[in-house]
């Protein structure tokens, strides 16, 4: 399934894009696809937000869900 993911912070800067379409069925698959597309940033720590909530374990992606890849936070 083609899913749109938003990129933020260093991930947006390094890839040069703020959104990306990847093919994935679940969040682990999404990370694998992302790492395949951008091998240089494979070692960057990153979190996945599914509908604006961080997912800690592999989670199936449903059509219409909001997905984002987030580097470690540094607000405040």
């Amino acid at each position, binding site marked *: 399934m083609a899913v749109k993911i938003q990129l*933020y912070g260093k991930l947006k800067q390094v890839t040069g894009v703020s959104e990306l379409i990847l093919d994935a069925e679940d969040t682990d698959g999404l990370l694998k696809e992302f790492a395949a597309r951008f091998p240089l940033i494979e070692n960057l720590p990153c979190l996945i937000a599914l509908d604006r909530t961080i997912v800690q374990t592999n989670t199936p992606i449903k059509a219409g869900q909001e997905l984002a890849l987030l*580097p470690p936070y*540094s*607000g*405040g």
Partner: protein
Amino acid sequence: MMNQKIKNIFVKGAISPAFIGEKIAAHQSKTDIGGHSIFLGQVRADAVENKQVVAVDYTSYEVMALEQMVGIREMIIEKYSLNCMHVYHSLGRIRSGEICLFVFTSAPHRKAAIEACSETVERLKAELPIWGKEIFEDDSFQWKINQPA
């Protein structure tokens, strides 16, 4: 979460001391308040390998940050029986010496206000999707890494 009122915490640019003064003044009609606790984050001119930070450029996944803040706000207002809580975070380029974070908690007694403010600062640094890019005087940059408390 979706039926909670979502308050915007983001302001474009630095938070001015006059704005902080106005927010304090707005609480003088609330005569059940006995103590206010305020935390202000200010951009430091850190030196990294002989280059000095001149600004931090803040970006956020705003929709998610505001949703997360609803939960933090509700939990802390209830836990400490606060009269009120206000949080403001800058977006965009904030120069060294300028204020980028303003957390303001008010309660009948000091202990609740002080602990609520401190806990809010820790939680928003850990849980809100906000990123700071430190800009050096020669326009090079590095991504900010938050120190644990």
